[in-house]
């Protein structure tokens, strides 16, 4: 535990630092591959629940009732064998009948109760029109679009448009990954799943917002100095919030995991499971994307501005000058270090180039204008 706490401290001080921003090509490729796979999965099609196809689901709770018994009963009522009969973890038997079968719910419930010898009110029925799932999804999609527009405007005002754009890309990335996982693994998509997807919106952005907030703080007045580039400052912000990001993600995942494994496990498939499964995948993706996609993308966008290009140049110049000065003082080995500076994360610069502190006075006049 103390070691972990220690890591937090060392991350904060920049003693250890993970170069997230610098390795953006790596993250982009990883994300690219995941998104590509997700897209393939999507192309293969989602496994839509009965809410999207229409039909009815009957749940019978009777100890000792076997699947084949229920299947027989269902076949007898529908006069075909298309009914899908499953046993849930809890011992209930679920019978799904597609809307193609002409038997209405009351008749089916009545018949089923009679054939299986259970009271009629022990049979739970859900009848869904074929358009219901689409209605929910359509509304959800509409909500998604409205939310994205509003939140982009908000982030653009509260932060800046580049941050809004980066956050949006990360958000879409998370959604794609989550939906892709569903498509690939073949989990059933239900309205519950849609709810899960929608919650990812809030969470994914929540994470990103926490990181961006620190990045914004770290980069305030960054053009006035020449010690570090925007990317480095962003990376430092990331590292400083890393513990926080991990903690918030862990804390967010714990209840969801409880919901998924305990709630779902006790009940078998159901709304609880649908929501928590989508959330679980989405939260994990959200944590990853806020660190490895949103911030590197933001840094990339920022570095493209003339101001930051200018800064990067000045930082490079200064480092070269520092390195030269250091080399003159300490010998050849230092010079090599100086050349590598560009690739070394901000934190490392501070640690390794102790002489920088002494060279401060020299550097400043050239850096400030």
């Amino acid at each position: 535990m103390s070691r972990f706490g220690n890591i937090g401290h060392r991350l904060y001080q920049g003693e250890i630092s993970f170069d997230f921003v610098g390795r953006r090509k790596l993250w982009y490729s990883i994300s690219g591959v995941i998104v590509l796979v997700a897209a393939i999965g999507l192309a293969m099609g989602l496994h839509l629940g009965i809410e999207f196809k229409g039909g009815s689901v009957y749940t019978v709770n009777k100890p000792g009732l076997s699947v084949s018994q229920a299947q027989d009963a269902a076949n007898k009522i529908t006069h075909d064998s298309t009914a899908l009969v499953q046993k849930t973890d809890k011992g209930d038997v679920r019978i799904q009948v597609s809307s193609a079968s002409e038997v209405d719910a009351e008749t089916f419930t009545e018949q089923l109760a009679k054939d299986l010898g259970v009271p009629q009110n022990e049979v739970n029925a859900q009848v869904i029109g074929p358009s219901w799932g689409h209605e929910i999804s359509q509304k959800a999609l509409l909500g998604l679009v409205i939310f994205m527009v509003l939140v982009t405007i908000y982030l653009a005002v509260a932060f800046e448009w580049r941050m809004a754009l980066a956050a949006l890309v990360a958000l879409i990335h998370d959604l794609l990954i989550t939906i892709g996982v569903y498509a690939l693994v073949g989990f059933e998509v239900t309205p519950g799943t849609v709810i899960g997807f929608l919650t990812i919106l809030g969470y994914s952005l929540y994470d990103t917002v926490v990181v961006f907030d620190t990045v914004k703080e770290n980069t305030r007045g960054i053009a006035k100095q020449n010690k570090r580039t925007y990317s480095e400052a962003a990376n430092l912000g990331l590292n400083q919030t890393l513990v926080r990001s991990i903690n918030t993600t862990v804390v967010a995942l714990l209840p969801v995991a409880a919901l998924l494994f305990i709630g779902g496990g006790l009940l078998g498939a159901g709304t609880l499971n649908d929501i928590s499964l989508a959330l679980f995948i989405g939260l994990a993706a959200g944590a990853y994307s806020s660190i490895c996609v949103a911030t590197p993308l933001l840094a990339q966008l920022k570095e493209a501005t003339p101001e930051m290009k200018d800064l990067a140049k000045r930082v490079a110049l200064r480092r070269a000058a520092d390195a030269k000065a250091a080399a003159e003082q300490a010998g050849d080995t230092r010079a090599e270090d100086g050349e590598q500076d560009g690739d070394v994360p901000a934190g490392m610069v501070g640690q390794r180039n102790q002489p920088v502190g002494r060279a401060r006075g020299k550097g400043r006049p050239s850096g400030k204008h």
Partner: protein
Amino acid sequence: MATPKSRPRDGYPGRALALILVATVGLVALMFGTGHKTPRLGIDLAGGTSITLTATSKDPAAINKASMDLAVGIIQQRVNGMGVSEAEVQTQGDKNIIVNIPDGGDQQTAIKQVGDTAKLYFRPVLTYAPSGQPTADPSASPSTAPSGSAAPSGAATPSPAASGAAATGATPSASASASKAGRAVSGALQADPTASASAPAASPSAAASPTAPVDPATPPADPAVAALQQQFAALDCSDAKQRQALNNNQADPTKPTVACSFKDEESGVKGQKVWNKFVLGPVALNGGDVAKASAGFDTQQAAGWQVQLSFTDAGSKAFAAVTGQLATQQSPANQFAIVLDGKVVSHPYVSQSITGGNAVISGNFGQEEAKGLANVLSFGALPLDFTKSDVTTVSPQLGGEQLKAGLIAGLIGMVLVVIYSLVYYRGLGLVSIAGLMVSAALTYAIMSLLGAGIGFALNLPAVCGAIVAIGITADSFIVYFERIRDEVREGAPLRPAVQRAWPRARRTILVSDFVSFLCAAVLYLVSVGKVQGFAFTLGLTTLLDVVVIFLFTKPLITLLARTKFFSSGHKWSGLDPKRLGARPPIRSSRRRGPAPSAPKEA
């Protein structure tokens, strides 16, 4: 930092704490005081049937708020009429109506009935009679024109035809034809043993209703007619159960039927009210033929309130034809009934063919009545049909188990979060536990009160939302704690650290909570069905998160920072400077590299 100089550096944490504690205790007390100790459970948890009706229409403009509200009112009336207590009917989104029927009522009937569109029909009146008031005075004076109910008798039998309540059926009428009107009416006669002989039926008019598809040659012994007679005879409209049974047994529009009036009407006797029962002919027009209806005051003749109707093109023609027919009839067959959901809302008489597509229904309307009728007609005019998008029947047993599983999951999630924060934040972890508990108490109390106040019902997705919210609430603590620890790492003593960390943590928390709330609000406004319950809980808990962090967590930490345990950085406080690797002031010069100095620039 931003603290005004006029007050203590760390404010008055006691006040805020007292405020939220009073609020929490107050809410909980209110909860117990009003007796709403548990949140109202949704149908999916309490057991029952939830029916989602989606309006469909060829004309999208017909699905508007006004027509949806009307539909809700009518469905509500219908469901409650079925004897289901506490059924809940509400619109959701632009074109959905949710009907929640708790366990106990006749759910099967409800499912069958509730989705049927409230249908408005115009049917010719074949006969009618008061019902359920055998003591009605037969010598009543006519107070309203159509209330006289002489019945044309069938099969040329000159039977006496005035009904009990209204001997005013002053016009002697009889139908010489063996039309179905006559046959139907013989039922009416049987139902009215009190009929006076003073009004022999003698109307010569043939075919009472040309639209009647019934074979005129059928002898009165026709089982269908006999059944109708029997039905009419047996019908007692003052019995609510019977009225419902009629309603449930929606008539075939092409066949004659029996019906009750919508509510008890003025009888012949002044001030006395009776239910009327009717034998009605096949549907002549339906609500779709009405283009517009409005209530207005008849200023020209000062005849009181009336309802103006305008028909569609097809409706005008049909109406002209029907009224032309009806006008030739004797009372009461010169009336047409406006039938809503199998009940006669109004039965004005017709004196001449009404052409031109406009009609006025007058009668002894009050303003309310006229407006109500206009509403009904307007609604009927909307071709709104409802399809059952989703019908869920859940036995309380299964619902209860889902709730139990959800609660267990929530509890375990909470325990895991508590363990995690205790292990990681130690003393501060206790603060987060207290915060979670305040948050949980507030959420529970507000949900319970909202259940009574605005009918908020906790459904399974809402439970999920609440569980997910544990994470959101804990997130805010973490943001603040990490900020404090950052300050301690910078070498600040605890009390200033707590104050300096706050503005930055506050901004982060507000921004991220705003994003969460925005998400919940948009979802709540746009979405339908299960999504809405989830969004509501999420929004509520996000708001509470802000309240708790501002009024509870921050003041509590401020107070704790004054204690020795925390300010000295006890190793169990979670703020041990050594463990956090704070830079002791002496070593700061060595430590202060460019990197760590960054936050200070902020």
